[in-house]
């Protein structure tokens, strides 16, 4: 057996284990010196990234990977934890790994002047490990554990600047929200375990009956995970957390939020896949409705913000609405093969593709806001102005992010939003009208920001502002180039990465059959 096969076979475990081990080695390495620590962290995540791509390339070719910790014997289903990687999980890990790698490259210069950096990097790696765990696991309780690991690490990172009262307050708000959410997820898991004696997602999905208790569990799971994903009306923690955290933390936080979003989709499509459309009002329509409210409220709130990072945070809320709209529209027709082929699969392609685009676009904007803060120590848009003179590259990156986030061609945001508009129009024209309207308002929001921060007369207090250091430019450049490539060749991405992920969600039977070979339902 050669080394590549070995890595591939153990990759689901390694993707979580390498950042986890790296996290606890970081304090030791930082005893040597700061540079060695930074290189060590980047190498750790680089290694993880290469394994993620190795695994993803195999999964996209059509193999579902399972990895059992503990008993390999199928007769004892509970004495083990199972990782199960289908194309959707692989898709999410690719997003997570890009964000994590960019974040540590950006951190090199951005966070240099702070103390306590060994803890900072330890927490970043822990958060990344937790995020990967949420995306890869095939076990409900394991999902809860990784959710808590991610919450604890990200809460400590949001409150990293403890000298600022508001950052600590945002961190406290985040930990209260995520702990309550996680406890209700645990309660729902207990409800499921009490009835079916199983914790494995595939095992549960094969026997689920949609009894009264199952409905309670479904509501608790969706509500708690949607709260963690920042859906209106449970979004109040998100602008604080995104706005107060250091910029490189925010970009991983986007990944952690999307891991919760992945949880919603996994619960709706896989765990309850067989039974979810037995209700008189489809859960899909509820997701669509939540998506619409999220879009409108997010954009409306973004219009009136005067703080750079809070403004981007509210537009990030709006962007999450698009994913709920696209995937929710797909969920309404789950189980109906004709409608799924006509509308559902392209709506879901748009929604799933938008998960990646949102991470890149909003991530880039947050990095630009961080760069502006680094150069000027100012985040209020009322006090900024004329920065395009001194920060050429940052301005270019901001324009790219601006066009991408508001869905303008030729950026990647356009590709996914067009898919959503087209398919939801056939479902109900109002859906796509609202989606286009909020997209236009997003453009208005960011044109305002562009004008007030980068254009205008040169302000005397920003006369000495310099372009930000190289590591931050490299990090922003990586994301910007991915955005442009995705925007120019959307077809390539959709057919190679997005469609396998969408098919993995739709054909939940394959996910179940990987563990329970005798299962017959599913598409």
């Amino acid at each position, binding site marked *: 057996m050669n080394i590549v096969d070995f890595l591939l076979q153990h990759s689901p475990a390694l993707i979580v284990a390498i950042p986890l081990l790296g996290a606890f080695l970081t304090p030791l390495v930082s005893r040597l010196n700061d540079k060695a620590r930074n290189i060590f962290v980047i190498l750790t995540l680089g290694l993880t990234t290469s394994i993620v791509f190795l695994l993803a390339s195999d999964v996209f070719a059509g193999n579902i990977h399972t990895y059992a910790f503990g008993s390999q014997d199928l007769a004892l289903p*509970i004495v083990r934890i199972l990782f199960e990687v289908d194309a959707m999980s692989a898709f999410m890990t690719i997003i997570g790994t890009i964000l994590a790698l960019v974040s540590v490259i950006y951190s090199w210069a951005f966070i240099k002047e702070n103390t306590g950096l060994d803890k900072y990097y330890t927490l970043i790696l822990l958060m990344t490990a937790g995020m990967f765990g949420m995306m890869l696991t095939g076990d409900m309780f394991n999902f809860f554990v990784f959710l808590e690991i991610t919450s604890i690490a990200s809460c400590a990172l949001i409150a990293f600047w403890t000298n600022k*009262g508001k950052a600590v307050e945002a961190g*406290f708000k985040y930990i209260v929200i995520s702990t309550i959410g996680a406890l209700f997820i645990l309660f729902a898991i*207990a409800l499921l*375990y009490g009835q079916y004696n199983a914790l494995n997602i595939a095992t549960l999905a094969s026997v689920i009956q949609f009894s009264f208790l199952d409905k309670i569990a479904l509501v608790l799971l969706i509500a708690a995970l949607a709260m963690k994903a920042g859906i209106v009306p449970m979004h109040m923690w998100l602008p604080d957390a995104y706005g107060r955290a250091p910029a490189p933390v925010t970009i991983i936080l986007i990944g952690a939020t999307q891991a919760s979003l992945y949880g919603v989709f996994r619960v709706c499509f896989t765990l309850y896949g067989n039974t979810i459309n037995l209700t008189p009002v489809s859960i899909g329509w509820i997701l669509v409705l939540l998506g619409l409210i999220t879009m409108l409220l997010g954009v409306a709130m973004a219009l009136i913000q005067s703080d750079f990072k809070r403004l981007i945070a509210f537009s990030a809320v709006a962007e999450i609405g698009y994913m709920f709209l696209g995937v929710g529209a797909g969920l309404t027709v789950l189980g109906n093969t004709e409608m799924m082929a006509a509308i559902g699969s392209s709506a879901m392609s748009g929604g799933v593709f938008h998960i990646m685009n949102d991470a890149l676009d909003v991530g880039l904007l947050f990095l630009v806001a961080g760069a502006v803060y680094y150069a000027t120590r100012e985040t209020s848009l009322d006090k900024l102005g004329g920065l395009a003179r001194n920060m050429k590259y940052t301005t270019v990156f901001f324009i790219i992010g601006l066009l991408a986030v508001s869905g303008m061609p030729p950026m990647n945001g356009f590709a996914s939003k067009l898919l959503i508009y087209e398919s939801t129009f056939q479902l109900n024209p109002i859906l796509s009208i609202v989606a286009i309207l909020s997209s236009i308002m997003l453009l208005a929001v960011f044109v305002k920001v562009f004008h007030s921060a980068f254009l205008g007369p040169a302000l005397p207090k920003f006369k000495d502002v310099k372009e930000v250091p190289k590591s931050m430019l490299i990090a922003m450049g990586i994301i910007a180039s991915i955005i442009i490539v995705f925007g120019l060749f959307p077809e390539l991405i959709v057919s190679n990465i997005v469609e396998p992920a969408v098919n993995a969600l739709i054909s939940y039977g394959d996910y179940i059959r990987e563990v329970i070979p005798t299962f017959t339902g599913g598409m």
Partner: protein
Amino acid sequence: MIFNIPFIAVAALILIGLYAIIFRRNLIKMVIGITLIESGVNLFLITLGYREGSVAPIFTSLPTGTTVPEGMAFPVPQALTLTSIVIGVAVLALMLSLIIHIYRHYGTLDVRKIGGGEE
């Protein structure tokens, strides 16, 4: 009825916890509310661990005539509860340390008074 008492206790603990989080103004009392919810969920898990007619899964003191392993309750909920308690301790410590920082900045624990003012 008597067998339902654990479930009634679970519901009471979770509701009291939610009441404390929503209506109490003091940060410490909110944290106590979260701890109450956690105890409620843990109690729920432990209660689920008992299956009718089965015995505790302790190999050395099994009653005679027990079939192994069908006659024993599976000890998974206990393992889940232990994990949940460990996570709860970490979260509790983190929340209390954040409260210390908040008190240093604002000089109060009243949720209505913190968060205002410039940085």
